[in-house]
């Protein structure tokens, strides 16, 4: 390993309401468990951006901070576009995902323009979705928690998976996958709870700098805890255990 893996957490305070920023911590820790050095770089403005970026995490925030967060993210539009094109894994959660889309329609009919980096836009739902969510995806069955009042349209071509329980994007699908960019409503520690998705992103990050990823021993213990936590929810929802 020539240099530590550099994992960027974008606007960890403005876009970290639900602990989503912790996903950067999770990627770094899994990298370390696999024997790769890794650091989390918290970026609050374009001036904080490191020279090398190997993975990016953007979380969700409150609607009152949305425009402020968008205005800061907009100063990094070129970088975000470059990373997405170059295959740098980018995890977008909730508001962070919405802000990188074409835009966000609000309940009063106004629109917050997005950065236009991923396809689709967020539109108001009749009622807030707040519950456990289960998604069948090619990274395994994902289980998490959703809390949002907008659905997502225009990303139907490439969802993250199909909803088994919960609301997701609003029409049976959940999330968005565009190359190395993954958008999801599963907030909080989605990567800790679903190591299949974490390892997909980490494998991509390491492959870009010529390294193969083999999960470390410590991650096996953590993944067992995650499996138990997921099974608890699956049982409550009447779904089969893993």
């Amino acid at each position: 390993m020539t240099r530590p893996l550099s994992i960027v957490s974008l606007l960890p305070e403005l876009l970290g309401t639900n602990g989503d920023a912790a996903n950067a911590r999770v990627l770094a820790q899994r990298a370390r468990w696999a024997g790769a050095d890794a650091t989390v770089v918290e970026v609050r403005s374009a001036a904080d951006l490191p020279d090398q970026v190997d993975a990016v995490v953007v979380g969700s925030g409150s609607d009152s901070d949305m425009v402020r967060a968008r205005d800061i993210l907009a100063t990094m539009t070129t970088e975000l576009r470059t990373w997405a094109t170059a295959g740098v894994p980018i995890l977008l959660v909730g508001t962070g995902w919405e802000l990188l889309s074409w835009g966000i329609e609000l309940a009063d009919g106004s629109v917050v323009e997005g950065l236009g980096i991923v396809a689709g836009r967020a539109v108001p739902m009749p009622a807030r979705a707040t519950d456990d969510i289960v998604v069948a995806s090619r990274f395994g069955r994902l289980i998490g928690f959703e809390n949002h009042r907008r659905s997502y349209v225009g990303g139907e071509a490439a969802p993250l998976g199909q909803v088994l329980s919960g609301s997701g994007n609003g029409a049976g699908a959940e999330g968005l996958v565009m190359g190395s960019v993954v958008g999801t409503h599963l907030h909080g520690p989605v990567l800790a709870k679903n190591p299949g998705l974490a390892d997909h992103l980490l494998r991509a990050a390491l492959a870009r700098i010529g390294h193969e990823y083999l999960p470390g021993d410590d991650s096996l213990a953590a993944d067992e805890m995650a499996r138990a936590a997921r099974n608890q929810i699956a049982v409550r929802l009447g779904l089969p255990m893993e």
Partner: protein
Amino acid sequence: MRYAPAILLGRIVRKLARWRKPGGGSAIPGLVVNRIAPGFLPRSLNSFPGGLVIVTGSSGKSTTTKMLVAALRAHGTVVFTNQSTANISQGLTSALLEQASLSGHIAGDIAVLEMDEGHGALISGTLTPRVVALTNVMVDQIDRFHDSNMVAAMLAKIAARATGTVVVNADDQYLTDLAARLPVSSAVARYGVSADVLADNPRGLGYSATTATRLDAGEGMLLTSVQGRRATVSIAGVDYPLGLPARGTHYAVDALTALCTAQAALGDRFDPVLAINAISAIPPVFGRGEIVTVRGQQVEFVLVQNPASFQLNVDSLEPKTEQILIAIGSDVRDPSYFWPVNTSGLGRVRIASGSKAHDIALQLVYDDVVVDRIEPNLGLALDDFLALPEPLAGLKTIIFSADSMRRTRTHLGLVTNKEEQE
């Protein structure tokens, strides 16, 4: 005698409610009286000779109110206050009914009310408090349908009712902005922590937004040091030592708020030594750094109610504490809740327990905390934890969510303090 029929009826309803369900039904008489005599509550609260003091804000209200009442009583003031969590209008009216004469007069010099920011805005339109004390603006997941601006707007409504002084936490940006928009007729009293105290809390004090600069000694009361359960406050340039009911900067800030509010309420009669001695004499708080003797050994209980208090409690644990049990229960609906907290300071946890045992253990291992065992059965976890040999350093420490606290106390046969369950 305007309210005599309502008061009499309220008392009858109270008797009936207790007869049906001993110890219960406390809000029902208030509901009845509020329905037939809606003026009773505001008129009674506005009629104290020393006026009404309202304590409100996102966090620290109960502790601050308790300390303020102790400080006022130490000055010989007779205080009416809303004990327990009767901080909604029915509960308040019921509490007032207990003490009202038939003319509606309530013995006492001053009323001190703890008010939830939401309820406060609801009933404060009819109240004319002399002093309003604002603790802070914090938004956590319990409150996540409220954003900081909404909370600040509700507090501004309450503050706007003050006829005398608004007491403001100068470290809180939302409250500082709020104070700047008050009418010029309002007096503002400020309190804040010193730069050193803030530096000792590298992750801040949990406020939604912290001001960039610290208060000067000439601008208000200062908290100048916190060490365990000892703190120092600076009042008009004089340093006073202060004892706290539990370890942690947030308790010291609560005490500072109480002192600043007592001064605003008492004016020239305020004696810092009397107030500080009364606050220092408050017994340790249940469930938040409370030390109890269980099965012949001392155990420390730490209640975490939101990410901010979790972080402050992790950061203020006695260094080298080596025997920790952590129990998170079903009251934490969404396990994402605690992930903003950096738990690495715990080092090693002997048992993770509660119905969210796997979730909290998962967070701990990602923070490099060693987790010896996951035991979702809390009773079993407690028995095995208490059976461990005496720790080499620190006390056996149990960190729990509110639900796990109740279950722990029940399992260990300890009484539950209703006042502390918010």
